[in-house]
């Protein structure tokens, strides 16, 4: 009797111990996140000003603003999404709605997964040889956008596929049974239902595109270019590359530190914003569904 009581206590102690460790580690993860955020926000907040956001870099990037980089990143995001979003969504529709389960479908899926797994620097190399050199775009917004677009293509495809898959087949059958064609079914039933999740995926890929550095290193990013681009064949500055440059190889690394903090803060702000927006959207739509 006392023996079993003892085992019970040991059992309980073991659990307490294990759970304690799990709690501690989880807390650490959260602490790391908060530390990074707090560190950059606190240091960066001192730098952020209207002038910083809208001004040109000055004095070897130790003073002034990061306006061209913000504009550049914005253009790259728009450019890449213009390519990725239609191609990705259409591709996901085709594989999910049209293709029967075959080796070819599995092959395409495998290719999409592989594309997702390729390191971003490889995309950079590829973008440089295809868009910059072979197609002759030079270092330009279009080359950078297409490279970034390729990088996010699997993300968009996957989230769209997930969104489409989450729609119960009975809705499609219901539509077909009423004499709707495939296209009508997709347009009027499937896509409207998948829309919230597709948009959420799109927003998250905005976050990804705006933070990527490696793919734009050799395709678009300019080291120092205190003017705004005139065409899609111009080079631009971009926030992540700018941060890299001024924190490692600027004319004066120490003096441009505050600028780096500011840039990092802007980058983080974009990510935060994107996440909040995506979560809010998700919650809004799921609530709407529940209400229904």
């Amino acid at each position, binding site marked *: 009797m006392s023996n079993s009581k003892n085992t019970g206590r040991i059992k309980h102690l073991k659990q307490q111990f294990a759970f304690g460790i799990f709690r501690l580690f989880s807390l650490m993860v959260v602490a790391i996140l908060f530390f990074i955020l707090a560190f950059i926000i606190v240091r960066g907040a001192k730098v952020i000003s209207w002038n910083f956001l809208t001004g040109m870099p000055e004095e070897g990037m130790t003073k002034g603003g990061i306006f061209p980089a913000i504009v550049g990143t914005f253009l790259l995001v728009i450019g890449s999404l213009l390519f990725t979003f239609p191609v990705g969504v259409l591709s996901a529709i085709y594989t999910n709605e049209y293709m029967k389960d075959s080796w070819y479908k599995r092959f*395409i899926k495998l290719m999409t997964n592989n594309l997702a797994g390729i390191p971003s620097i490889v995309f950079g190399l590829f973008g440089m040889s295809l868009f910059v050199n072979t197609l002759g775009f030079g270092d330009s917004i279009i080359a950078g956008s297409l490279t970034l677009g390729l990088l996010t293509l699997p993300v968009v495809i996957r989230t769209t596929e997930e969104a489409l898959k989450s729609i119960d087949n009975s809705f499609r059958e219901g539509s077909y049974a009423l004499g709707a064609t495939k296209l009508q079914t997709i347009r009027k039933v499937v896509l409207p239902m998948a829309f919230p999740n597709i948009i959420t995926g799109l927003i998250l890929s905005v976050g990804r595109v705006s933070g990527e550095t490696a793919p734009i290193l050799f395709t678009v990013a300019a080291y120092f270019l205190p003017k705004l681009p005139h065409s899609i064949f111009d080079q631009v500055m971009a926030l992540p590359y700018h*941060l890299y440059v001024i924190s490692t190889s600027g004319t004066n690394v120490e003096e441009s530190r505050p600028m780096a903090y500011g840039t990092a803060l802007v980058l983080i702000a974009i*990510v935060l914003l994107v996440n909040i927006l995506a979560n809010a959207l998700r919650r809004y739509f799921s609530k709407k569904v529940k209400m229904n």
Partner: protein
Amino acid sequence: MRNSIKRFVEKISESILFLSSTVTTLSVLLIVIFLFKEGLGIFNKDPIEEGQMVVINKNNPIRKVVSADIKNIFDQNITNWKQVGGKDDSIILFRMDDIGNYFTEEQLGDTFQFVPQCLAKLVDSIPGIIAYIPSKYFNKDFPARELPMEKITVGSFIKGKEWFPTAQPAAQLGVYPLLIGTLIVSLGAILIALPLGLATAIFMAEIASERLRKILKPLVELLAGIPSVVYGFFGLVVIVPFIQQVFHLPVGETAFAGSVVLGIMALPTIITISEDALRTTPRAMKEASLALGANKWQTIHRVIVPYASSGITAAAILGIGRAIGETMAVLMVTGNAAVIPHTWLEPVRTIPATIAAELGEAPHGGLHFKALFALACILFIITMAINLFVAYISSKNKMSKR
């Protein structure tokens, strides 16, 4: 009529959709073609810049010298032909810059029109000479012998202990230190991230209340969303100085710093995938364990974790994959020394960081440029293998759980 229009529209849209679906496959294909076309260009070539060559005296019996020895010869680490299997004769180095030491300007001519003759004379007269000259001077009558150099092979590329692509005259293209650097940083990252990530995943999936989980989940997503360059920057301004101080190092930019930063970056991947895997454990299985008198912890480590083990493995492997491919953060914190590290606290250089750092300076189409593409090929193969492996694990897993 209406129906035939309907059908026509239907067909057209299907073709458009089909074309879109081929874009990923096409991209992968193009990536492979472009990478490997350039990357494979370095193999079976002399490790020497095009238009240049290394010549020796006609009578020098030496047959073949590996490129590492060439570098050592020109660095004057090897000074006697004996050391590379030749006669006992000291080595006389000659670079084009040295030509002034042997000939006067008059001898060379106003427009250097006499250079070829001078060179011929020089090479012919010094038996122990080794000369690095533009190959345009080397013709039928040139009284010297080209030093046959070992061509770059896949083996020498992988096993080569030195990465010095700009070395003159023979580029040192050994990936080994980079490979080791990549692996050591990634392995370290996963050693840091796996326990933390797995613990967090278990905590989120099994221990935390639903409310707490709803707070943690977006936080983890946020961690995943932070750009790598920000992590790199954070590593540079916080972790690197910290490591330098704690371990009393001359520089803080070390493999360890890279591991820490990459570990943090790999956390969201590991947490999300393992948590998903843990959550797939059927409720009935958990309840069965609890009903038999197991407590929560016993249920977790005897039922849930084993059930999710393949998912957790996939998480770990994908985490490694991410770490191996990560560029910017590593580039910023590891110090980028292309030497084989002996401890964690030394600077290293990884493959992606090498590409990022050197591509800007490598002349287009040159040996160095191509070598960087070859690095990208290696990276591509590694990540492809990891992806296929993970796909294999999860497909096997799906089968067995059906």
